[in-house]
């Protein structure tokens, strides 16, 4: 049943490179857009405008932010471990970009006579690949916090470690139901399996668990304990500034995109549209992006609404509620799949 990289078409080597560059560029362009959308929307949720001074309607604000950050001094505390301190943000950003590669933006399209899949790569172990890179991303946070040589960073890193490990279990188990139903680990085939009905309907519990665990995985409110600006200043990135902080920031928002993309792919039918709509192939990436944006807006909405959990609440919520629920969901799905097969 499980097969590795079932490729029924041949992609030339240059297509792979072009695809990689294009997808990286899209990811890179999306981050400032969400940054702006987040700040504008957060403003609206708080009955204010948000940034509106730089450029028309404040659209150049992310550019100004990035410009400011890049212009800053490369500072590091004297207690830090230089090599690891510099390495940590790179690990974060690399793992985020790598995870972004598996989000399918569309099926195989015929572009100038060559079949090209609109995704970075279609690995036969899609979700496992995602969680593997999620686990590596956690090294970025952990090393960053530890190598900074600061109490706040260290506390933030510890929290991040515990939180990411606890919620990754629930996150993985919440997708298991979908994998059982679809009978494949390839994200492209999971999307194809949703032609009749999006998995959000039969796997509603899994979807909700995935969303909640996704919030925790991306360190977003109400689970932003690793950053907890009020008590830990900035958590693992307290001692970071300038371009290194920018890369942490970038990785964080890219992770939000990745989780949104996976949620859209696995539960909302990827590039498929409801009511039998079948637009031409070039619309597919736009459909996926639109679905991703729905999740991004949800992320922002929740951030504007919910306060931070207490640490013990977070842990007991992850282990005592989400994990049993996710396990139960997987079990019930397995029984149903076997019984109806």
């Amino acid at each position, binding site marked *: 049943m499980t097969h590795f990289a079932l490729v029924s078409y041949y992609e030339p080597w240059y297509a792979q490179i072009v695809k990689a560059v294009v997808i990286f560029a899209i990811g890179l362009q999306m981050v400032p857009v969400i940054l702006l959308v987040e700040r504008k*929307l957060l*403003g609206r*949720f*708080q*009955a*204010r405008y948000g940034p509106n001074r730089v450029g028309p309607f404040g659209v150049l604000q992310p550019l100004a932010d990035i410009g400011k950050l890049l212009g800053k001094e490369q500072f590091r505390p004297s207690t830090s471990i230089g090599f690891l301190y510099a390495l940590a943000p790179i690990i974060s950003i690399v793992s985020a970009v790598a995870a972004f590669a598996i989000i399918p933006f569309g099926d195989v399209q015929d572009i100038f006579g060559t079949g090209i899949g609109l995704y970075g790569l279609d690995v036969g172990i899609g979700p496992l690949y995602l969680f593997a890179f999620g686990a590596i991303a956690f090294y970025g946070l952990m090393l960053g916090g530890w190598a900074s040589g600061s109490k706040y960073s260290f506390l933030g890193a510890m929290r991040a470690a515990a939180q990411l490990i606890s919620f990754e279990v629930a996150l993985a188990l919440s997708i298991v139901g979908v994998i059982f139903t679809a009978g494949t680990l390839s994200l492209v085939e999971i999307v194809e399996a949703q032609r009749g009905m999006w998995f959000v309907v039969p796997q509603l519990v899994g979807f909700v668990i995935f969303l909640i665990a996704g919030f925790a995985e991306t360190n977003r409110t109400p689970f932003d304990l690793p950053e907890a600006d009020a008590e830990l200043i900035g958590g693992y990135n307290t001692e970071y500034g300038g371009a290194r902080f920018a890369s942490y920031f970038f990785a964080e928002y890219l992770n939000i995109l990745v989780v949104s993309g996976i949620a859209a792919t696995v539960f909302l039918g990827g590039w498929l549209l409801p009511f039998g709509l079948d637009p031409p192939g070039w619309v597919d990436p736009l459909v996926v992006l639109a679905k991703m944006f729905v999740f991004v807006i949800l992320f922002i909405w*929740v951030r*504007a*609404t919910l306060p931070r959990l207490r640490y013990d609440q977070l842990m007991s919520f992850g282990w005592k509620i989400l994990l049993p629920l996710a396990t139960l969901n997987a079990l019930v799905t397995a029984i149903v799949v076997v019984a109806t097969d």
Partner: protein
Amino acid sequence: MADWNPGEDVLAVQRGPEPGGAGGAYRAFGETLRGLKTTFARVIEGPKTIQYPEEKVPVYPRFRGRHKLHRFEDTGLEKCVGCSLCAAACPADCIRVVAAENTPDNRVSAGERYAAVYEINLSRCIFCGYCEVACPFDAITMGHDYEMSDYNRSDLIFTKEMLLAESLERTPLRAEGE
């Protein structure tokens, strides 16, 4: 622990119900939805921000802003007669008045004397309005201007000419019932 009595004056703390299991989760979920509804209502309401430099908060008619000195509208003579009552009333001691005699060919005010020097140090002024109350001729009143920041302290000492002049920009006045 059960029979330990902390004393009469210690109040028992009222606590909410324990979160509990499934019921607690259900309640938390409902409350989350209620919170989301609350924040979404703010989006529909629209921003409440006043874009300050372009848009100004209208002041009330009795707002105590920067002082103004007045002239008689018919004769154009200054109302101030240099009595220094304002300076005497000023708790911050920011008003300096030097009086001089009116002469037939140099008639500045309606009274016997006039203020040859009238300075208010706005960096000291606390905008209490006592000068306005003390003035027997309503020569000084509190205006509506509140944008008085400057780069030098010495620029904040307003002279008689500056106080007599009409302010360049009118501060918007709050309409009735606004």
